[in-house]
């Protein structure tokens, strides 16, 4: 029954996101946004790419009890269980097994079990399967990091900008300090001490990536603090928390969107780097970084097994990072209040 609860929680989170997007679409702001975004085809395409990756990652987060009742499988597992498994490596679109000269290539036992657009890995699993599972790890990492860094960055940034004075000094000191330590070193030290699970990776990323957000939010709050509606809210005696929550935060949403995309692509890249160094996702886990690390030994075989590497980098990481960058740039332009309409 646990899986039911778990799926409901995940589903509720997903539905909440979709609902928020749908509401944004219907709102005036969303219409303006859509109009501005529709000017660039690259931006539209990258938003669709993001949606696809997010959807695959989300589906791969769901869990169902497997037929044996012990393990749990994801819908991705179920889909790929329909794809026949090879005995070992199979190149993309290969349909015959490499044979000795005297064997008959057309004999049924010498055919591959199926055709795999991205090939299969050493144990015969489809590379596309690994790429899809990697999606969910990437999604978890990004969401987990944001869950840490957004509240931190928003809270500290708003407080620093709104209260000024001593609070401002302390927050500035805090983020200057964190920015002073190269983040990769910070993350490594943190993971070395706390352990290497996904939870700590997210926490370490989150603790280093709130700095940029806090800086921007602080600057924006400094400007908004003097806005007429904030001053009148203060004048009629609203409690401070209400001014912060109801009047300031909603008007900072564009800063949040702008600072979302670059860290997201940095997180995805950082995961590969950490995994390469050996403190990221451990052996046996599924992530794009793990696939890259594992494919390293296969690249030096003769003939080289290049498709695991190509699958993880060209199908997994590159399109997503590219889409995040392009969409981020487009959103930044579209949300810029100074841009002409």
């Amino acid at each position, binding site marked *: 029954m646990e899986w039911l609860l778990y799926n409901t929680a995940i589903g509720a989170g997903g539905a909440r996101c979709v609902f928020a997007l749908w509401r944004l679409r219907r709102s005036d702001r969303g219409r303006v946004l859509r109009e501005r975004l529709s000017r660039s085809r690259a931006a539209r395409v990258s938003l669709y790419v993001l949606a696809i990756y997010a959807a695959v990652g989300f589906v791969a987060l769901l869990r169902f009890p497997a037929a044996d009742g012990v393990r749990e499988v994801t819908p991705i597992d179920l889909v790929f269980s329909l794809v026949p498994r090879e005995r070992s490596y199979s190149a993309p679109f290969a349909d015959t097994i490499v044979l000795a000269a005297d064997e008959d290539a057309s004999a049924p036992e010498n055919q591959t079990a199926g055709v795999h657009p991205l090939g299969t890995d050493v144990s015969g699993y489809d590379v596309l399967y690994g790429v899809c599972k990697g999606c969910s790890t990437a999604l978890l990492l990004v969401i987990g990091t944001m869950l840490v860094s957004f509240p931190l960055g928003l809270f500290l940034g708003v407080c620093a900008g709104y209260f000024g004075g001593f609070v401002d000094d302390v927050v500035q000191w805090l983020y200057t300090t964190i920015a002073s330590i190269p983040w990769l*070193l910070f993350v490594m*030290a943190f993971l070395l001490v706390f352990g290497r699970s996904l939870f700590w990776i997210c926490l370490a990323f989150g603790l280093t990536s709130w700095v940029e957000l806090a800086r921007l939010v602080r600057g924006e709050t400094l400007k908004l603090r003097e806005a007429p509606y904030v001053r009148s809210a203060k004048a009629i005696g609203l409690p401070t928390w209400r001014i912060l929550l109801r009047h300031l935060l909603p008007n900072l949403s564009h800063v949040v969107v702008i600072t979302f995309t670059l860290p997201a692509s940095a997180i995805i890249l950082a995961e590969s780097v950490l995994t390469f160094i050996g403190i990221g996702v451990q052996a046996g886990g599924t992530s794009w970084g793990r696939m890259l690390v594992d494919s390293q030994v296969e690249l030096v075989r003769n003939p080289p097994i290049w498709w695991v590497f190509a699958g993880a980098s060209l199908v997994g990481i590159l399109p997503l990072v590219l889409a995040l960058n392009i969409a981020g740039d487009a959103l930044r332009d579209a949300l810029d209040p100074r841009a002409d309409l």
Partner: protein
Amino acid sequence: MRAYIVRRLLYFIPVWLGVFLLTFAIFHLRAPLTLAAVQLPQAPLDRLQAWVRNNVYHLPRCFNLPGDANIERADGRVHPELARQSLFHSQFFLSAGALLRFDLGTDRTNKPIADSLGERIGPTLSIMLPAFLLTALFSLALALLSAYLKDTALDRVLVFAAIALLSVALPAYIIGAQYVSEGWLLIAHVLRNSAVPVLTQLSLSIPFLITGSVLLEQYFGIPGMGDLLYAGLVAQDFQVIKALVYLGAFVYMLSALATDILYAALDPRIRLEAGAG
């Protein structure tokens, strides 16, 4: 200008204190036995306690109070000899003192870490400096080209290439944002006006010379700083990692200082604002 530099130098003190506190928090706030259990999963208690003692985690955390000398420490022993030490014979004050003396300590094999750093800085710089200069030149040229050809097919190809080779993407992006469209005025005007963001980006990538070389040195077997970092991680040598964190922060702060002074030299407004504030 001199007042500005002095003020900027004084700013080192609180930030350096912050770096120390943060590093201390990472390495010393967890309970010693939990820390040992992360390093040695499934090890029996006596091995964990030996680990605690070898890493000097049995010392009191903040103050060595005289009355506490007979308390059993995390290594499972009583340390009556602590009663003869001063109030400040603790994890906190010993690390703070070592840092003030620029004493980076020794690694697992009792080799001074400062020596290892001295040996390894040569190979790292011999690779990373040319790489850094090439990156700067290459991304400047590409970005100027990309900005000049904004919204053409070639611009998109360049942006694509920049993202694909993300190491050069950031400098390239920043300058790419400073669009100027007319002819060869580009270089004279853009380069001067975009000097500030370019300098920021370049100076911010200086600490990356240390961390960024981890992959490179690991891949090609170069005995540099990145290799030291990797070896420290594999050996779970806290002292080495701590030393590298300090070093990274120090390099970052120096490069930020250099950038700020360059800014002030390039743009008198910054100097004046800082002087007024």
